[in-house]
């Protein structure tokens, strides 16, 4: 009962923060091209990684609420400073005689006055130092990973005293069983599924929880960043190739059961497929999550573009409905990523004696 109440309170407070963080833009009064441009810019900013954790801005006082994150650059030596030196991208940061400026989320070397040279398509031409910063995404991944670690280690501890699940385990045990019985077992097979369970569970819960955090008004967009999904896909790729048995390679380079000329045709196609599979994994997760965020933010933006209460009410309902859909998508994408990963692992360890 208490858990139910606290979850309800959490949802209500999150909704309140969400409306509060957008309220600043509604006070402008005249919905016109300015507002539309502002919404567009907000969405673009949201989709990009940032060097500070920005929550919201107060338009009237011009104050930004959030906190700075460390910037780590490799530019003839290690340069470490806090991103507050950029003043939210509005000024030039001076570190050990070097000058840096932020343009579209990327750090460029510049001079004292912060001049940037652009080519025809408005890409900055200045030199870029190697950027190892703890950006918003990196920071969020660290925090969420610690959160996942804390939940699951407390869950593991609870089984030491009593085999019946208690606390968080009550909620998570069915999900763990679901990954084992619905994803790993049928796709990998009874014989080999155990050694892949740790990776499948990690990937499933990481994607799912990160997706859920992406729906909170914290405004983090981790799985909608192609670098993150690239890293996840490359892990799947490496594990598949590293644990593959002879049968897997035989099916790629010398497909059994087809005429010899066909084997030469199939080999390059199958070889391409090895790389296309993780590529599709990467694109699918990235595209689904960023598309969801764009649509949701556009709808919230429309609430402020329309100046009549009937349309606003309709869009509020639509936004709520879409948020529910996004909750489903958050789970579905974690499920599909894990499912396809399990399928690829299954093909790597499969033993095809029964046919051909």
């Amino acid at each position: 009962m208490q858990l139910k109440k606290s979850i309800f309170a959490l949802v209500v407070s999150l909704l309140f923060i969400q409306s509060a963080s957008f309220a600043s833009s509604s006070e402008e009064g005249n919905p016109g091209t300015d507002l539309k441009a502002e919404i567009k810019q907000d969405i673009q900013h949201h989709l990009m990684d940032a060097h500070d954790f920005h929550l919201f801005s107060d338009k009237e006082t011009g104050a930004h609420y959030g906190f700075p994150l460390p910037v780590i650059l490799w530019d003839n030596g290690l340069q470490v400073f806090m991103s507050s030196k950029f003043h939210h991208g509005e000024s030039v940061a001076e570190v050990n005689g070097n000058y840096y400026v932020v343009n579209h989320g990327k750090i460029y070397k510049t001079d004292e006055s912060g001049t940037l040279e652009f080519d025809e398509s408005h890409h900055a031409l200045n030199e870029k130092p190697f950027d190892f910063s703890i950006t918003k995404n990196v920071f969020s991944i660290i925090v969420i990973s610690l959160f996942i670690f804390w939940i699951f280690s407390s869950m593991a501890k609870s089984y030491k005293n009593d085999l019946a699940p208690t606390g968080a385990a009550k909620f998570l045990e069915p999900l763990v069983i679901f990954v084992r019985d619905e994803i790993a077992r049928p796709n990998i097979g009874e014989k080999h599924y155990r050694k892949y369970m740790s990776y499948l569970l990690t990937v499933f819960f990481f994607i799912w929880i990160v997706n859920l955090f992406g729906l909170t008004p914290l405004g983090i967009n981790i799985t909608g960043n192609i670098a993150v999904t690239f890293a996840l896909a490359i892990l799947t790729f490496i594990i598949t190739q590293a644990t593959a048995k002879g049968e897997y390679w035989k099916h790629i380079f010398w497909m059994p059961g087809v005429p010899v000329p066909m084997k030469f045709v199939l080999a390059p196609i199958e070889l391409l497929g090895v790389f296309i599979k993780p590529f599709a994994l990467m694109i699918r997760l990235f595209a689904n999550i960023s598309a969801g965020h764009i649509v949701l933010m556009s709808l919230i933006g429309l609430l402020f573009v329309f100046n009549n209460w009937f349309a606003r009410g309709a869009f509020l309902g639509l936004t709520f409905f879409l948020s529910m859909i996004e909750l489903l998508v958050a789970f579905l994408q974690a499920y599909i990523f894990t499912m396809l990963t399990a399928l690829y692992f299954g093909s790597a360890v499969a033993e095809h004696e029964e046919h051909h």
Partner: protein
Amino acid sequence: MEIPAMVGAGLIVIGAGLGIGRIGGSAMDAIARQPEATNKIQTAMLIAAALIEGIGFAALFAV
């Protein structure tokens, strides 16, 4: 972003939509015929839908 590319992306999205619709419809038929196989059908349906969806997104991001 050019007009032919946008039209092409639109065509691909229409195709992907038809494909996913067909998958969903067929899965409904199959579940109606064999309710006891619901889980297996749903899994296969989701995988097939995800594969088509990937093409749709690839088209959208190519624009």
